[in-house]
């Protein structure tokens, strides 16, 4: 059965957007297949791996578990809004420096979880880091370097304050 279209307005990576799509479109499909931002990954599609993590109104969420219609009026950040190859975001820099990236598939989601954590709490404890990253699976690193990356990003974020 065809779904009628829904029109929404929201702010994506600082830019106001107005777009329409069938009502059953998920936020992940809107971002990847309609707006063609391929940084946000689809891993499991059912909220277990965190590869699709985006930030909505300051909070990390799974884009695969949200309908695109739920983004109406919201402020959305994806990994494309973090930094550029010439000017990396400090969280991206920390992941590069601390070898937090191997295959890279989980990385956009982990970057967004880390950004949401540090925006709210610039000096998290190790337990708080674990709680914030527990929804992001990585099958390469064993997490040691990811923890080191998040701790390095936190050290920089808290120095700034």
């Amino acid at each position, binding site marked *: 059965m065809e779904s009628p279209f829904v029109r929404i307005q929201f702010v994506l990576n600082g830019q106001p957007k107005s777009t329409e799509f069938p009502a059953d479109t998920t936020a992940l499909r809107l971002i990847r297949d309609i707006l063609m931002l391929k940084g946000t990954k689809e891993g499991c599609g059912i909220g277990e791996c965190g590869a699709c993590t985006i930030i909505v109104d300051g909070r990390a969420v*799974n884009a695969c578990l949200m309908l695109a219609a739920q983004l109406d009026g919201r402020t959305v950040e994806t990994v494309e809004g973090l930094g550029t190859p010439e000017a990396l975001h400090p969280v991206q820099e920390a992941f590069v420096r601390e070898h937090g990236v191997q295959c890279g598939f989980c990385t956009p989601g982990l970057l967004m979880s880390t950004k949401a954590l540090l925006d709210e709490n610039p000096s998290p404890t190790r337990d708080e880091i674990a709680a914030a990253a527990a929804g992001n699976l990585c099958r390469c690193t064993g997490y040691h370097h990811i923890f080191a990356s998040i701790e390095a990003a936190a050290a920089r974020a808290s120095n700034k304050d």
Partner: protein
Amino acid sequence: MQYIRPQTLDEALDHLDRQGRRTRILAGGTDLVVDLRSGDAKPEFLLDVSRLPELKGIAATPEGVLVGAGVTLAEIESSEVLQRHAPALNRCSRTFASRQVRNVATIGGNVAHCSPCGDTVPPLVIHEARAVLASRRGRREVEVEAIASGPYACALPPDEIIVRFVLKPAAGITFADFQKIGRRRALAIARINAAAMARQEPDGRIAFLRFALGSCTPTPQRLSEVEDHLIGRHPTAQLIWEAGSILAERTIAITGRRPSTVYKEAAIQGLFVRMLAPLVTT
């Protein structure tokens, strides 16, 4: 499928009155969007109630602790009111799925989804929580245990919506906990989950105890035989083991013996003993 986001509870009730049978209510969507993807849910209408102000808010009042059905698990996690007045519910929110899910998932959605493993249900049950329901026909209250008639089967009529939960406050309790067993710590669907709260006298005697078990029976429930075995007594390690044994026996009496019973019998008792061990004073 048509997406509808009402601005007020009245608008939502009007829609449910006309189209309730053909509508699924989206409170956070973290369960429902999975079912839409798999094709298990094929509603004609999606009613997004996640922004309704009438479903928000947490407050301690003389009539009880009020938790709006649209309150997210993240809001439960950071609520000082619930840390004080419903500590087992607060604890359950800390291990609920992942940060990403907690930021969106709601307590009303968790209850109405009627999963036997819903983590918020045992903590609500020990507070003898009631759900305030609204429809065009009026308002009524039911016990939280009455909302699920079986696994994933919601007993509420299709024109009705959960507005809030009313919990009896945990007055004077000295102990509260929520624990679960899953395949990993985060994002695991509970194999067994349980909530408890107790008040011990200065001499250690258990004056008050509430215990509820989830995931093991078709719907989560309190087990009064277990509570009765401990209330009024001085808890020793042996007494806690006995109560855990009664719990496992009662649970198996409800479910019958299954292939998983070999594991569950021991695990239910073990979880109970681990949970209530802090009550042992000698």
